[in-house]
């Protein structure tokens, strides 16, 4: 599920398309500050913020502490611990300076030179130099995990001086945009990387305080005193991630002030949140879509197609009541490769016909399918309810199991294919605002499964996917055509996936928090450093 992961890219594009960059924040002028211990009457400058900002995700936070290979929900913590050369600004739709203060490109985008920020300290105590930055990127490329593919265009990295990083590329690529990726683009001190989460090698404003895998308060972060950006008294110095699978519990905790931020509520609670004095809400379109991946190794093509037809796409979007919009293909609107007019429709007669061709259906042997989805995700639950009801009429029993991400993912990656599920439900969002991530991660064949959880193995599709980065840089029109063709192959011909909807972000946070802006390029990430309780 990488439910968070896929969010980032999708968000950036959708922002552009719907002009709701940053989202619409309501109730920010309210003054209740349940999570704050601010002393009334004290001046803002003099008041040290001793309160903890508590984030309430519905799933476990950390699956991988290595910034080179991390590729899942931990982005919500990692993006506050680590920094890249640039950060994508959803409002301007451009990368802006972070660890690099300026950059230039030459030779038609095949050569990039980044000037690094002076006086940046790693949490390990080391000082940022071009040498360490080079080591970090090369280590990430060598590890080859997670989103390391984003550096695919890099031919060599040079360090002409301690604060200059020069990239030579194999083919033209928007390296400033790539460097803003929420995954695999972090500049870190390799000496600080610790898989047990006891320390970290980042430069970001926060550092690991305590990680307790499996505990309710799984992770706490503390301010890094030597952060290059400095600290103001009112900024949050303590952050906690409190895993709260039940939406209703999260809502109650938010109301009582025990948590500060809930990334997603159900439509009814979100509506209620908009009129609750102690709470503010934020709404923004995203690049995060729901993928229903069909096991291409166990399910015949006809069954996969029947499942595509059995999903009540319109009903699902209606039941979401504003929390999502109907998807048209794999690539959300606003990104290169988006194909309008391919919204799917439910057709139970066709589904039955296809099932019967495969030897199933009413009056034939019962078909039992195992589906796994994210525990506590009510939107996914809606899909499951609608799909199981539709399939029951076709003599198909859906054994749906809500699971924590690690367990769901481990089962999907089981060495024994018989132990894997038939249908896998997860969200996806791009690593940087570009559609390549869906294809190279989810549909390119792999020896051992990672995120390609439809287990699709198709040499022709692989070849087309591999050609995409260069094509995008040299001939965007051809790239668009290639993306359209790929979606036809993956969705229509191979029936590896159904894409019901693109999420609309609906956040709820304590009314007293100032400065919250959704950045869909970093899905579900709250940049805590940018926030403060209202004075």
């Amino acid at each position, binding site marked *: 599920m990488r439910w968070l992961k896929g969010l980032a890219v999708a968000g950036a594009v959708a922002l552009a398309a719907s002009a709701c960059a940053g989202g619409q924040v309501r109730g920010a002028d309210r003054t209740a500050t349940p999570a704050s211990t601010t002393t009334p009457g004290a001046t803002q400058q003099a008041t040290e913020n001793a309160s903890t900002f508590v984030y309430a995700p519905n799933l476990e936070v950390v699956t991988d502490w290595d910034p080179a290979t991390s590729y899942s929900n931990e982005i919500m913590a990692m993006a506050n611990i680590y920094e890249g050369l640039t950060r994508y600004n959803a409002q301007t739709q451009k990368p802006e300076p972070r660890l690099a203060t300026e950059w230039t490109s030459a030779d038609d985008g095949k050569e990039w030179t980044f000037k690094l920020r002076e006086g940046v300290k790693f949490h390990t105590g080391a000082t940022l130099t071009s040498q360490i930055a080079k080591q970090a990127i090369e280590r990430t490329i060598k590890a080859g995990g997670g989103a390391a593919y984003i550096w695919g265009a890099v031919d060599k990295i040079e360090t002409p001086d301690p604060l200059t990083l020069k990239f030579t590329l194999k083919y033209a690529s928007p390296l400033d945009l790539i460097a803003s990726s929420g995954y695999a683009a972090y500049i870190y001190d390799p000496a600080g990387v610790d898989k047990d989460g006891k320390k970290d090698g980042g430069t970001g404003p926060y550092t690991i305080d305590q990680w307790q895998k499996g505990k309710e308060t799984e992770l706490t972060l503390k301010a890094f005193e030597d952060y290059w950006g400095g600290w103001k008294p009112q900024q949050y110095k303590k952050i906690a991630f409190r895993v709260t699978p039940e939406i209703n519990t999260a809502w109650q905790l938010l109301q009582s002030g025990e948590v500060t931020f809930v990334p997603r509520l159900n439509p009814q609670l979100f509506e209620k949140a908009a009129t609750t004095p102690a709470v503010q809400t934020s709404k923004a379109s995203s690049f995060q879509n729901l993928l229903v991946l069909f096991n291409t190794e166990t399910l015949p093509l006809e069954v996969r197609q029947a499942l595509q037809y059995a999903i*009540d796409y319109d009903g699902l979007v209606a*039941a979401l009541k504003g929390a999502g919009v109907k998807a048209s293909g794999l690539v959300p609107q606003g990104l290169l490769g988006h194909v309008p007019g391919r919204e799917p429709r439910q057709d139970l007669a066709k589904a039955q016909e296809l099932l019967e061709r495969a030897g199933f259906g009413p009056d034939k042997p019962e078909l039992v399918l195992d589906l796994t989805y994210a525990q506590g995700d009510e939107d996914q639950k809606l899909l499951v309810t609608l799909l199981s009801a539709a399939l*029951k009429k076709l003599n198909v029993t859906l054994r749906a199991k809500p699971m924590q991400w690690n367990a769901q993912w481990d089962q999907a990656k089981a060495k024994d294919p018989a132990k894997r599920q038939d249908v896998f439900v997860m969200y996806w969002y791009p690593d940087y605002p570009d559609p390549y991530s869906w294809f190279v991660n989810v549909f390119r064949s792999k020896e051992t499964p990672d995120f390609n959880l439809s287990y699709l193995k198709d040499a022709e599709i692989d070849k087309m996917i591999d050609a995409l980065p260069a094509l995008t840089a040299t001939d965007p029109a051809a790239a668009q055509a290639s993306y359209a063709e790929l979606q036809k192959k993956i969705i229509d011909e191979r029936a590896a996936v159904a894409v019901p909807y693109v999420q609309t972000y609906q956040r709820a946070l304590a009314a007293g928090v100032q400065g919250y802006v959704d950045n869909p390029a970093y899905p579900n990430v709250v940049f805590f450093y940018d926030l403060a309780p209202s004075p």
Partner: protein
Amino acid sequence: MSRPISPRSAPPEPGPPEQAPLRRTLPRVPDRFAVAGVVLLALITLAALLAPWLAPYPEDHLDPVNALRPPSAEHWLGTDEVGRDVLSRILYGAQTSLLIAAAVLGASSVVGVTLGVVAGYAGGWLRDVIMRITDVFLAFPALLLSVALAVVLHPSVATVIVAIAVTWWPWYTRLAASTAASVATRPYVDAARCLGVPAPLIVLRHVLPNSLTPVLVQLSLDAGGVILTAAALSYLGLGAQDPTAEWGLMVQLGQSRFTTNWWLAAFPGLAILLTAFACNVLGEGLRNALDPRRTVR
């Protein structure tokens, strides 16, 4: 109202008094609560049987556009998160709950009474073996054992039936064994034995029928418990699965929306409460009726 009178006033004859024939012990004035229980249970059973005709909407009728509508003239008990009519689902859910109760009580009483009667009549090592096995089962808290079993099996209605039946039968074995043991010493059983009637026939013709009364009372008292346990298992996600209409499952699905859409959990919860209540008062009434040591005022 009923209340037990002092045991000392029980007839001084030997042997347990529960074996008094049914007809002789039926009270002249029926217990009002028991009557209410019977009526309620009859209504619920009728509703379950007639669900396809009574329910305003089909069981699998989805209408996401009208999801989460509060109770209204169109949907008396409101609609759920995908627009299914809650009243219709409760009526169909009655089928599931009563089916589970009947299957569990049927299976566990057949197994339990058979073993119990054999143990009670045979005595000796056979009785010891059977009773020690039941002790092993009784050593585990019933719900815990059911949960453990349900976790191992795939969640479904059949799983619920198996998981509860496995924990339920030992009680009937115990009950039947103690009654059968006392029946086995009765003069008419001795007489049959002296006449050379084979043991299986004695058990079937004499011991079994005269050991059934307490089991019948216990069954009616247990029906509510089974329905509650089944609801608990489904509530824990180990029993019936969507889209099957089942009360416990409906409560579980509705609980996360309780503060905004209370009708999702409240009405199925009420259905569970009423059914369990009806079974209990009926069982209580039956016990009073069949127990000559108790009197009805």
